[in-house]
C-alpha cells in the first residue's frame, strides 16, 4: 500500500520479537500459556497458546483492541488453572494490571507481561486485515494516550510509536455535549439508553476490574437491584456498575464494545474519571502504588455541596 505515511502503518513492529519471547517462555517452562492475539475469520481475536510451535500465530496490529487483562481477573479461575500466564499487553492494558495489583487481586510473580509499543487501535476491529489509523476509524479512547511506553512489563517489544490521531469527536467532547443539555433532556437521554439494557451483564463479565466473587446485582436478600430488565432496575444497575468503577475504571472501553444494545457506557465512565480528576486530582495510572480515590481520603477534600 502506497500513500500511507511511515508513522501510520497498520501492523506494529516487534511482532517477531514478541513471538520469539513467547516461544522461549513456553520452551523454558516459565509460563504454561501465552495469551495474545491471533488473526481469525472476523479479525483479530484473543488466543491461548500452549505449544511453542504455535507462537507464530501471535499478531499485533491496529485490530488488537481487546484488553486481555480480563483473563487475569480472579473471577476467571479456570484461566489460572492453566498454570502461569504470559500475557501480551498494550500500554493501556497495563493500567488494568496495575489496578489488580493495587487491589491485591493478582500477584506480580504469577504473570509474565510482554508489553507491546502501541500507537492506537481501531474502533471497529472485525475486519480481515489491519488498516492504518485515521481520525474516522481510531478508537476514541486512544486519544491522549499516556502509556505508549509501558513500564509495568517484563519484556517490551516494538519501536516507539507516534501519538494516535485525534478522533473526529473525542469522548470528552461527547461528555461536554451531554453536560450542555438541560437536566430533563439528560435524564431522558440516559433513561432511554438504560431502558435498552437487557441485563446480560456482558459489561461486567468483560471488565478486568469487576472482581467481586459475588456481585451485588445477584444478591436477592435483600434485593438491592431489581433483576428484571425494566427501566427502574436498569437505572439502578447501570449507576451502580459505574459507581463501583469510580476511580478504578481504566478506560479500556470493553464494556461498551461488548454491550449488545450499544449503551454508551464510555461516557458514564469518562464522566466519573473527570469527577475524580477534578475533585481529587486523580488520574488512573499504571503505577500499582497509586491509591484509588474511593477508599482513600484527604482531610481537606472539597465539600462545597455539603451544608
Amino acid at each position, binding site marked *: 500500500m502506497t500513500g500511507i505515511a511511515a508513522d501510520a502503518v497498520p501492523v506494529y513492529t516487534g511482532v517477531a520479537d514478541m513471538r520469539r519471547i513467547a516461544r522461549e517462555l513456553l520452551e523454558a517452562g516459565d509460563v504454561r500459556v501465552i495469551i495474545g492475539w491471533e488473526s481469525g475469520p472476523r479479525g483479530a481475536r484473543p488466543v491461548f497458546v500452549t505449544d511453542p510451535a504455535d507462537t507464530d500465530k501471535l499478531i499485533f496490529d491496529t485490530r488488537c483492541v481487546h484488553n486481555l487483562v480480563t483473563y487475569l481477573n480472579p473471577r476467571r479461575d479456570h484461566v489460572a488453572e492453566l498454570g502461569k500466564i504470559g500475557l501480551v499487553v498494550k500500554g493501556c492494558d497495563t493500567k488494568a494490571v496495575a489496578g489488580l495489583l493495587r487491589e491485591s487481586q493478582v500477584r506480580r510473580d504469577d504473570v509474565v507481561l510482554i508489553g507491546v509499543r502501541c500507537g492506537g487501535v481501531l474502533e471497529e476491529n472485525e475486519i480481515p486485515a489491519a488498516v492504518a489509523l485515521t481520525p474516522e476509524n481510531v478508537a476514541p479512547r486512544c486519544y491522549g494516550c499516556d502509556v505508549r511506553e509501558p513500564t509495568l512489563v517484563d519484556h517490551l517489544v516494538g519501536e516507539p510509536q507516534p501519538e494516535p490521531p485525534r478522533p473526529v469527536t473525542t469522548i470528552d467532547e461527547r461528555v461536554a455535549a451531554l453536560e450542555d443539555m438541560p437536566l430533563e433532556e439528560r435524564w431522558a437521554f440516559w433513561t432511554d439508553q438504560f431502558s435498552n439494557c437487557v441485563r446480560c451483564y456482558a459489561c461486567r463479565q468483560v471488565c478486568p476490574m469487576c472482581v467481586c466473587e459475588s456481585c451485588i446485582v445477584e444478591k436477592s436478600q435483600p434485593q438491592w437491584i431489581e433483576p428484571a430488565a425494566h427501566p427502574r432496575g436498569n437505572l439502578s444497575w447501570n449507576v*451502580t456498575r459505574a459507581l463501583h468503577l469510580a476511580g478504578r475504571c481504566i478506560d479500556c472501553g470493553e464494556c461498551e464494545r461488548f454491550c449488545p444494545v450499544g449503551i454508551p457506557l464510555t461516557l458514564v465512565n469518562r464522566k466519573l474519571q473527570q469527577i475524580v480528576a477534578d475533585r481529587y486530582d486523580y488520574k488512573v495510572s499504571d503505577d500499582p502504588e497509586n491509591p484509588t480515590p474511593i477508599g482513600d481520603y484527604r482531610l481537606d477534600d472539597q465539600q462545597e455541596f455539603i451544608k
Partner: protein
Amino acid sequence: MTETHDDFEPRITAFVCNWCTYTGADLAGTSRLHMASNVRIIRLPCTGRMDPLFFLKAFERGADGIIVSGCHPADCHYTSGNYHARRRFAVFHDLMEFIGVDPRRMTFSWVSASEGAKWRDVVDEAVANVRALGPFDAYRALTPESGETAAARETTPAGVDGDAP
C-alpha cells in the same frame, strides 16, 4: 420549573449517623423546634455505612428527595467514616447530576449532636427545595407499573415491584 406545588407534600428520606445527626435531630425534638414533618429518618451507625444503593432504593420506593447527614469533619466516632463518605457522596452527587437528577433533591450536611437548630434548617430547606421541584415523577415513571411495562407487572412476584414485603 415555573409551576408551583403548594399542595404537594414531599417525601424525603434522611440517612443520618447515629452519633451526631440522629442525636442532633433528637435534640431538635426535645427542644420543641418546629420543622417540616416530611422527613423519614433512617439511622445508620455512621455515614461511612452508606452505599449509593440506599439512595437509589429510596428513590425507587417513592422518595422525592434524600438527605444525608453525619458528623462534622474531625468528629467521626469511627475517626474517618465521614471522610470516606464525603468522597462517595461527591461522586454519587456529580454522577446523578450527569444522569439528569436535579441536585436539589440530594441534600448533604454535617449536623452535630448539639446542632438541633441546624437540623431544623437543613430539613426545612430540603423540603422547600423539593416542594419547589415537585414530585419525582420522572423516577416513578421508570417503575414497571407505568406505561408500556405495565404488562411486566402481571408476571412480577408480589413484593418486588414497590410493595413492602
